[in-house]
């Protein structure tokens, strides 16, 4: 069983697709690309504007953080092939160097036909700088991978039939990255955020905290991406006699991580751009204020769900979703004007709190079309939106 043809999604596409159900029924959607996003893409693409960053990235990826190994690999730095644009999504690029080393932890792919930077011959001045650069590039790369994985997890909820195997693998990858980040200490800011929110202390594996939101926290169901709701329900028991008894109460759990993390990713991307020049080496998980979020978008108050509950999306469970502002605080320093795009797409000017049954009601008209008939419509709309995005972004 295969997912539909895989494509990398661009930021705007991702933003648009967050409320899949809402634009699924639309024949045409119009939206503008937020300035921040355009800046991001422009920055990513224009060589000369990235030269500064390039300098800092002039190391090989995938070197172990263990600095003892750097000496032996130093000579190899001179032979590196240069830098290539690496696609994170269809339109989003980051710069990586090609690595010819085997056994490297992360090998970033270079699309050979893309831009090449022939800076590979420059000498590395001192080892400490190399070490710092290596570490920073590695963490940058790791961060990109984390972001990519989170998008994918969110996309899982976009699909009509989420692929459990794929979701599990991506979630495991995310866990692995976050565990490593914890060990590296990069996750300390996250831990702070957690502590400030009165959550578990950082000795608990933060990754676990993020991924397995405990249930003792409670919150009313908040607004959640309509699509995720619809994309990830799978009954615990399918037997006919129990169909009636299945509860739909915890459908929030299905969604929120998806919508949440997707939003977070976009926010973090934008923030990454804005803080680009000065904070390149920093982890992108900056803590920040979230007043903006609270005022502008009540969706931000929704609790980001755990990746574990991503799988809960595959079945309906009882229980109340936990509120969680920790993940939101992770990415809170981002331009939240992005939410306007979201609300515009959903046709909602405000983001009212809706219970699961409200969403059910809002789903109903979309799904009123009998059985399969809805499907081709949805798919064609997806393709249409795809096409529209390409026109807007591809220019």
């Amino acid at each position: 069983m295969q997912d539909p043809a895989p494509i990398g999604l661009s930021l705007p596409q991702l933003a648009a697709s967050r409320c899949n159900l809402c634009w699924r029924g639309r024949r045409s959607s119009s939206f503008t690309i937020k300035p921040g996003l355009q800046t991001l893409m422009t920055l990513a693409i224009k060589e000369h504007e990235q030269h500064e960053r390039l300098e800092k990235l002039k190391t090989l990826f995938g070197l172990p953080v263990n600095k003892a190994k750097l000496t032996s690999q130093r000579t190899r730095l001179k032979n590196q092939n240069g830098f290539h644009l690496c696609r994170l999504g269809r339109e989003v690029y980051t710069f990586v160097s090609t690595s010819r080393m085997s056994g490297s932890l992360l090998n970033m792919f270079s699309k050979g036909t893309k831009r090449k930077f022939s800076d590979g011959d420059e000498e590395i001045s001192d080892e400490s700088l190399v070490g710092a650069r290596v570490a920073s590039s590695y963490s940058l790369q790791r961060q990109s991978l984390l972001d990519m994985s989170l998008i994918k997890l969110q996309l899982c909820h976009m699909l009509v039939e989420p692929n459990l195997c794929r979701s599990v693998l991506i979630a495991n990858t995310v866990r692995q990255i976050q565990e490593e980040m914890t060990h590296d200490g990069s996750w300390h800011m996250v831990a702070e955020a957690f502590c400030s929110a009165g959550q578990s202390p950082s000795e608990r594996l933060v990754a676990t905290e993020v991924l397995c939101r405990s249930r003792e926290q409670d919150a009313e169901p908040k607004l959640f991406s309509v699509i995720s709701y619809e994309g990830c329900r799978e009954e615990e028991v399918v037997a006919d006699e129990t169909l009636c008894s299945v509860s739909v109460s915890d459908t929030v759990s299905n969604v929120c991580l998806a919508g949440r993390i997707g939003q977070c990713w976009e926010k973090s991307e934008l923030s990454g751009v804005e803080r680009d020049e000065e904070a390149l080496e920093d982890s992108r998980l900056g803590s920040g204020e979230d007043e903006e979020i609270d005022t502008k978008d009540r969706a931000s108050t929704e609790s980001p769900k755990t990746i574990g509950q991503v799988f809960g999306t595959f079945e309906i469970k009882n229980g109340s979703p936990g509120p969680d502002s920790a993940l939101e605080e992770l990415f809170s320093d981002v331009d939240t004007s992005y939410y306007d795009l979201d609300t515009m797409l959903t046709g909602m000017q405000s983001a009212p709190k809706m219970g699961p049954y409200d969403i059910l009601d809002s789903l109903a008209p979309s799904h009123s079309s009998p059985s399969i008939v809805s499907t081709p419509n949805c798919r064609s709309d997806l393709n249409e939106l795809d096409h529209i995005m390409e026109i807007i972004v591809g220019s």
Partner: protein
Amino acid sequence: MAGAGGGGNDVHWCFSQVKGAIDDDVAEADIISTVEFNHSGELLATGDKGGRVVIFQQETENKSQSQWRSEYNVYSTFQSHEPEFDYLKSLEIEEKINKIRWLPQKNAAQFLLSTNDKTIKLWKISERDKRPEGYNLKEEDGRYRDAATITTLRVPVFRPMDLMVEASPRRVFANAHTYHINSISVNSDNETYLSADDLRINLWHLEITDRSFNIVDIKPANMEELTEVITAAEFHPHQCNTFVYSSSKGTIRLCDMRASALCDKHSKLFEEPEDPSNRSFFSEIISSISDVKFSHNGRYMMTRDYLSVKIWDLNMENRPVETYQVHEYLRSKLCSLYENDCIFDKFECCWNGNDSVVMTGSYNNFFRMLDRSQRRDVTLEASRESCKPRQVLKPRRVCAGGKRKKDEISVDSLDFNKKILHTAWHPQENIIAVATTNNLYIFQEKVN
């Protein structure tokens, strides 16, 4: 004949046939999703994303000729599964055929199991080449005759007619799987079969549709703790109590149904320790096993993960006896393949008739033949360019980096949208069926 004295590499493969539309515009419903020969090799079934099953039959007329084996022609086409909409979950159930498995032939009719994500169906494919003629009360076209006009009586007789192949669903096994079915496997006892979804494996009796036994359940009590799913399962070819299932973490568990009713506890666990030098964030994803197949003799099993094919001896659990790299040049491209989701592609693999050669697919419409006996391998391509009848396939080479030699293709030029996920090998002869996106290629051994 089949692999005798060499198999994959002394054999020169040549093009035999291609089925499917020629144009590049692929209708999504035509994407082939499974390919399977029956036990005699005379029939070749394909399932597609549109829920249809197409069966090809090997012509028997030319069997006497040693120069060229006969061709496969369409025998029957039927719609196996329809798209469904689960109203309770607001989810559509794809009609795509995930697997087809033939039952051993017991009488004149052929039986096969086909499954989509949720429902398994048993189909009977039967031939009709005679029809009764000479009814007393009916005309030949079926209209009833007026009884008053009947003056004589006659005995109806069977007269030959044009061959008609009928496919009728005999059993529908539904509502037993919460998650998506990824495998079905018929038991050697010819009475039961298993169906595996992401978290559970059920045992069915072919005659009973309203009940199935759950024999494996790896669903954790708390779905948040889910880290592993079942990716494939198969019964042992001779031992009706033994089956294996593979997981997304790269482990294979062999279970004995005699041990207990619920086989959550495995009898054997096949797992190769991870190579620390190759460790990356993608290690787990590429170790996920996409297909597991027992050898015909039942002594070995083959597993396919993203980059390699491993042959395991059932008696040795700690490491495979053979490992073959399918497309090692992709190891440095894993991040990009992760980005475009190609890293999640599930490739299948198959054995040849005498277990000396294994075959699996790759990208760019390449497929690989790995000769176990001679420790050689070859990469071939299924493309429209080499479609002349009996044209010998030229081995292809991929250059990983550095200078590209003539006739080599560089990794960056590979088309990752053209992937061969499904292949099948005739159980007795050197005939292979290779499915590209929407075409089915049949290659045969070149016989001089």
